[in-house]
């Protein structure tokens, strides 16, 4: 067996899923829905395959380190809800698995070339997925997809250009270059800008609300969790390959600014999916703050662990929130009014997720925020952290505002769409998971206190 294949076992599982879905679509008529469901569950196989992956460095392309394994776990787990909720037809299944495969490749990238391959591999299917998915007007989806494509193409071009500049100065595509000159620093900045584009940092975020609003809710859940995790790792990898002190100085303020900007804009949104898009922007700000703290701490693994936990918690919260939209078919905030009286279970689970998104204990959202703040203060970033704290207070305005709408208002007379079962299960799982995550650090002590 090729020694390269073993570390890439999860990616192989995903590739098998892609071919499986496409092959079924070719061979079987009528549409093989159950076959597609099976193929869509390839992320589960990838998660299982993670257990046999040996950590190590296979120069020049593949680097499976601790963070690579952690990130792959979050990425594949974050993709499960989409696989579970809306497998769609054979093409959509293949596209979704292809994007996940790209993220998996990005996660093991050991040099810039591989990073670029991963970036493109994850982005291209995502454009098509946005164009094809969802029940909204076709024109809007296409427009969003084209916008997404141009933003992504711009990011790709920036990255390539930056890579060329970097290579021109250092003669390398991997880590280990000496201190950089002007050309190299310009290259690194361009590469980081590409990553910030993908994460959605202000002012490179303009594509994000439209895309998140137009796609089907489950797809947006996938984009906002797995894709965001991959993009964060992308930024981390760029900084790791070409460390430069400017990242520690710029990223924290950029992140805190993004967090505040997203929170302020989300306040006045009427459409729920757009609101959650801005909320996702705000969370991305905290991730960037976390990356900045990590860069400032000189690559401390503890700071990366905080980021990873944030991404894990966010995977639960965001997937759960979009699953709520998918399950209930609600579109606007005014439809949310009095919803608790109509569907107590879904509302309660959504309320838990909203408290978690707002960072209220005892939920995983609080723990995640706490850890990022903690690492930022360790890195001496008092100013950006305080700004991010203000953003998180502002964000309560809409998270709690939605809880208020659901619980404190009289029910509306308008007809409310059906509740769908598969997303409801995802919603419930995410709500329970996020609470368990929140009390996890205390669990041992609590159990000891209850049964000494």
């Amino acid at each position: 067996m090729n020694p390269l294949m073993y570390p890439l076992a999860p990616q192989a599982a995903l590739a098998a899923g892609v071919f499986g879905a496409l092959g079924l679509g070719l061979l079987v008529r009528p549409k093989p829905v159950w076959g597609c469901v099976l193929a869509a569950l390839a992320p589960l196989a990838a998660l299982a395959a993670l257990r046999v992956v040996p950590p190590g460095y296979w120069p020049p392309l593949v680097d499976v380190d601790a963070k690579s394994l952690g990130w792959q776990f979050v990425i594949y787990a974050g993709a499960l809800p989409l696989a579970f909720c809306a497998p769609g037809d054979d093409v959509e299944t293949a596209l979704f698995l292809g994007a996940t495969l790209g993220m998996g490749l990005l996660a093991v990238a050991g040099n810039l070339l591989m990073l670029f391959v991963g970036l493109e591999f994850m982005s291209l299917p995502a454009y098509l997925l946005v164009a094809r998915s969802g029940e909204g007007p076709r024109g809007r989806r296409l427009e969003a997809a084209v916008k997404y494509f141009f933003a992504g193409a711009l990011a790709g071009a920036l990255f390539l250009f930056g890579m060329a500049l970097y290579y021109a100065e250092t003669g390398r595509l991997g880590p280990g270059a000496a201190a950089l000159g002007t050309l190299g620093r310009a290259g690194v900045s361009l590469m980081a800008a590409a990553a910030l584009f993908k994460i959605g940092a202000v002012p490179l975020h303009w594509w994000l609300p439209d895309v998140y609003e137009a796609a089907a809710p489950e797809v947006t859940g996938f984009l906002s969790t797995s894709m965001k995790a991959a993009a964060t790792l992308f930024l981390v990898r760029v900084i790791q390959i070409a460390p430069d002190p400017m990242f520690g100085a710029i990223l924290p303020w950029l992140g805190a600014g993004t967090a505040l900007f997203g929170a302020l804009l989300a306040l006045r949104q009427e459409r729920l999916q757009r609101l959650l898009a801005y909320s996702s922007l705000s969370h991305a700000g905290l991730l960037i703050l976390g990356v900045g703290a990590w860069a400032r701490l000189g690559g401390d693994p503890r700071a990366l662990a905080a980021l990873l936990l944030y991404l894990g918690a966010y995977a639960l919260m965001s997937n759960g929130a979009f699953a709520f939209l998918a399950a209930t078919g609600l579109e606007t905030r005014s439809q949310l009014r009095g919803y608790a009286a109509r569907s107590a279970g879904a509302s309660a689970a959504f309320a838990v997720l909203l408290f978690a998104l707002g960072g209220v204990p005892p939920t995983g959202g609080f723990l995640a925020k706490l850890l990022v703040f903690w690492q930022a203060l360790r890195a001496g970033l008092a100013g950006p952290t305080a700004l991010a704290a203000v953003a998180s207070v502002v964000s309560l305005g809409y998270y709690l505002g939605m809880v208020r709408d659901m619980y404190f208002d009289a029910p509306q007379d308008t007809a409310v769409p059906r509740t769908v079962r598969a997303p409801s299960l995802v919603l419930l799982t995410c709500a329970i998971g996020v609470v368990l995550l929140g009390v996890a650090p205390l669990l041992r002590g609590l159990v000891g206190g209850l049964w000494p």
Partner: protein
Amino acid sequence: MSLLTALWVVPLAGAVACALSGRAARWTSLAFSLAALALSAAALRPVLASSGAGLALAGGAPGAFGVSYALAADGLSLSLVGLTAFLNLICVAASWDLDVSAGYWACFQALACALCGVFLARDLFLFYIFWEATLIPMFFIIGLWGSDNRRRAALKFFIFTFAGSIFMLLALIAVVVLHQRATGEWTWNLAALRGTDLGPAAPWIFLGLLVGFGVKVPMVPLHTWLPDAHTEAPAAGSVMLAGVMLKMGVYGILRVALPLAPTVAAAWMPLLTLLAAISAVYGALCAMAQTDLKRLVAYSSIAHLGFCLLGVFSGTAQGLAGAALLMINHGITTGALFLLVGFLYERAHKRGLSDFGGLAERAPRLAFFFGFSIMASIGLPGLNGFVGEFLCLSGIWQSSLPIFAVLGVIGVTLAAVYALPAYQAVFWAPEGPGSVSAKVRDLGARESGILWTLCALMLWIGLAPQPWLAALAPSLRGLVR
């Protein structure tokens, strides 16, 4: 399960049981409240009897992130836990006839659980989780069962307190980080963090803590959420808000802020005392201007908590003891006042001072209890309010800034100025043309029973404060400058 764990787990189990028991929820709630009160009495009895050191429970070994499950209880903690359990039972009794869903009862149990956790936790992570967890049930209590403007008041309450506490969280993290830099050990344990050298960050850390706790107290100028929240909450919600939740702020200052940054606290003493004195006087002045009875009681809380803070910041043994006792007293007295206003509102659906008149004849029992509680509230000697306020004032008189005692005395006088005319207008003035006094029937047996209990406590603490002071003193000894 140890006693300390049981003190917060029993109400938590109560919350779950209430949520599941549907129409029988009030009985479930009564049973669990009685159990919680019995437990806290069992914990409090040895402390009161021996003015003893209290109970300590070593938490488990530190788990992930240096977090440990550390609980401990001394006189201060147990008095407040006892107050929580007692007022919770009072609330259950007072709400008995309300037509509310099971969620109402579950929220009160959940609130009691979180409050007890706050007073018992000795690990700052645990403390913060309980601290924030109190907001969630109260948010729903105000928002679901409050009066007309409840939607806005609930959100305002939550966001204000959250905004304060997130800065407190940053300050706590900073202490943990500094402690790790000095010793290499990650811990959130309060005892271990005490004495950490905060260096140049100390003023900022103290400021963060002060904002977090000051919003809760509330200390002027962080008080603006309070009148809305207290006025819009249902009667029992106001009792818990004013009776216990405000005490979290003072407790936090005593337990966390002063021990972690004693030097800053000492240096800022003039400013802090000034803010406390302003709270005392400003709260009283605002109360004078109110025409809504419930709002008046709400503003009087700001004034009383101002006295509390005067005692705390005086740094003298008497002042601290007075502040601690005033916390308990204010819980009982203001609890009674909010209940009485609630009973009045239940009957007439009005709260304005000018909506009533001549109630003393129509509802003599109501008038008696109201008068009794008002007297306790304005500090009539022989009742509980006097002891705490006197100690606070004498504490500040002995401190380095006796001038603030003068301001405090003005506040005491103003208390009579706002409370007595209000009492007179509602109960003794002739009925005006728009009066709704005719709708008010007198208190029934259940309601009278509740108030007899509260008034008996006011009298008991007023006549014999010694056991309480003795139980509270050991907790405060380390804070005297």
